[in-house]
């Protein structure tokens, strides 16, 4: 499948990237093997794969939390292995992790959001502006002076997104952000992310095991044993036999669409979400 992001301006490029981890007894485990990938500005990219496929390693390479064993990771042309670029890379690529509780640093919501912006040595007035904007963007303005540990799981994750947004990143990487949330929390977080992507043109890279969430992405990348096996629009990836061969299951709507197409019914092959199906059936 053709790799997308080639026609758009690329903000992230991985060139022959491999990553190995040392294990006991001088053994190494290869987490990523010769990855070549480009992600364009404003894309909403989903990353799927079985446990141990290298998704989290890939996410951490993008923020320079991890450095590649070989190859290059370029963020807007900046090599993550160059120490002089790491500060700017950390600003440009924000990260949200899986566990909402483990991401809370400060005891008040506005200070939690301000933490990253303060680290950039911005003026207090600028920090305050960014805090207000970030809280507005995630719908938590009313909770500005609340204690983060009293928020719901979904609110905490949106707070983590706001904390990353305050640094005005060009890209947001989310590593299984909804895995510890209930249904309402997931919906609100996803709605927030879609809004950030569509209205603010924020590049979003989301790792998830939930295919319904990844179905809304512009592009879906599937990792398996440290390599990119599939890369394309979700409707193409879900309908490919290779997808199920890799041990993954498409979302129910995509399965229904695929079945209807195979049975010869006239239906848009690109329908992979419930909203798309409803819109198609009830225009």
């Amino acid at each position, binding site marked *: 499948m053709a790799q997308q992001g080639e026609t758009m301006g690329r903000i992230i490029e991985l060139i022959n990237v491999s990553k190995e981890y040392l294990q006991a007894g001088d053994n190494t485990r290869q987490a990523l093997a010769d990855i070549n990938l480009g992600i364009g500005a404003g894309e909403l990219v989903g990353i799927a794969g079985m446990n141990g496929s290298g998704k989290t390693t890939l996410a951490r390479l993008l923020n320079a939390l991890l450095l590649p064993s070989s190859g290059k990771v370029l963020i807007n042309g900046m090599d993550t292995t160059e120490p002089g670029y790491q*500060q700017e890379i*950390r*600003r440009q690529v924000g990260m949200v992790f899986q566990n909402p509780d*483990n*991401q809370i*640093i400060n*005891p008040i919501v506005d*200070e939690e959001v301000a*933490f990253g912006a303060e*680290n950039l040595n911005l003026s207090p007035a600028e920090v305050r502006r960014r805090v207000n904007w970030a809280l507005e963007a995630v719908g938590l303005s009313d909770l500005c002076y609340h204690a983060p540990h009293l928020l719901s799981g979904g609110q905490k994750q949106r707070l983590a997104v706001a904390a990353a947004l305050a640094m005005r990143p060009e890209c947001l990487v989310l590593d299984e952000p909804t895995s510890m949330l209930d249904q309402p929390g997931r919906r609100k977080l996803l709605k927030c992310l879609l809004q950030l992507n569509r209205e603010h043109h924020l590049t979003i890279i989301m790792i998830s095991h939930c295919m319904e969430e990844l179905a809304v992405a512009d592009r879906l990348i599937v990792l398996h044993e440290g390599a990119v096996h599939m890369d394309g629009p979700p409707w193409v990836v879900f309908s490919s036999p290779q997808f199920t061969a890799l041990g993954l299951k498409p979302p129910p709507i995509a399965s229904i669409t695929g079945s209807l197409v195979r049975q010869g019914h006239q239906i848009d092959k690109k329908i992979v979400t419930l909203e798309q199906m409803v819109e198609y059936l009830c225009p």
Partner: protein
Amino acid sequence: MKVDPRSKMLLVICISGLALIYNNPLQLALLLAVSLALLGAFRFDIGMIGGYLRPLVSLLLILFLIQCLFTKGGQVWLTIGQLELVSSAGLIAGASVVLRILVVVNSAMLLTTCSSRDFVLGLIQWKVPYEIAFMVSIALRFLPLFRDEMQNVITAVQLRGVELKKVAWGEKISMYRTLIFPVVYRTMLKAQQLSIVMEARGFRAYPRRTYLRRLDLYWADYVIMSLALTVTVILLVGQIL
């Protein structure tokens, strides 16, 4: 009237400093009264002090007895045969030790009347390096986490049919020694995850950082700090002379 945490820190330092220098139970009792009065003035619930001090009761009793038994001098109050057990010097020394500890603990409670973030901000504005002040803040945050992890592990053990309250003391100590490992491990894991989040948000990326809030000193703070320093210096000089 909101008092700056730096004023409270200075009060704690002055009172604790005097407590370390005084050896007279009467002076220490007066210091204790001053610390209790300050706690009341800063709207600390005096009734809660008992709860905070309860874990220290056995320690204070042991220290009092040790001082009584091993400090000799003055009038003898209790003997067993030829052995002098308790003398007036011992009682005075015991009372002094207990009162000193009470003064230090009570004055430290003054710091709980301000939020931890104000406390850290106060340290930073006193030119304490941010990393050290931040360590204080994170330590305060991790204490309840440690307690929660311990509770989780104990619950997990209870779910496996072990009722810790009914276990004999010797076996209980051995069991807690085993349980401490997963608690420490899980807490360190949380600490590692938090450090990753902090790095991802640019912690120490630049040599300087700014702060969203600033603490300002008002006239009441200047009065408190001047008074505290003046009185402390006078008392110290008086003690020395």
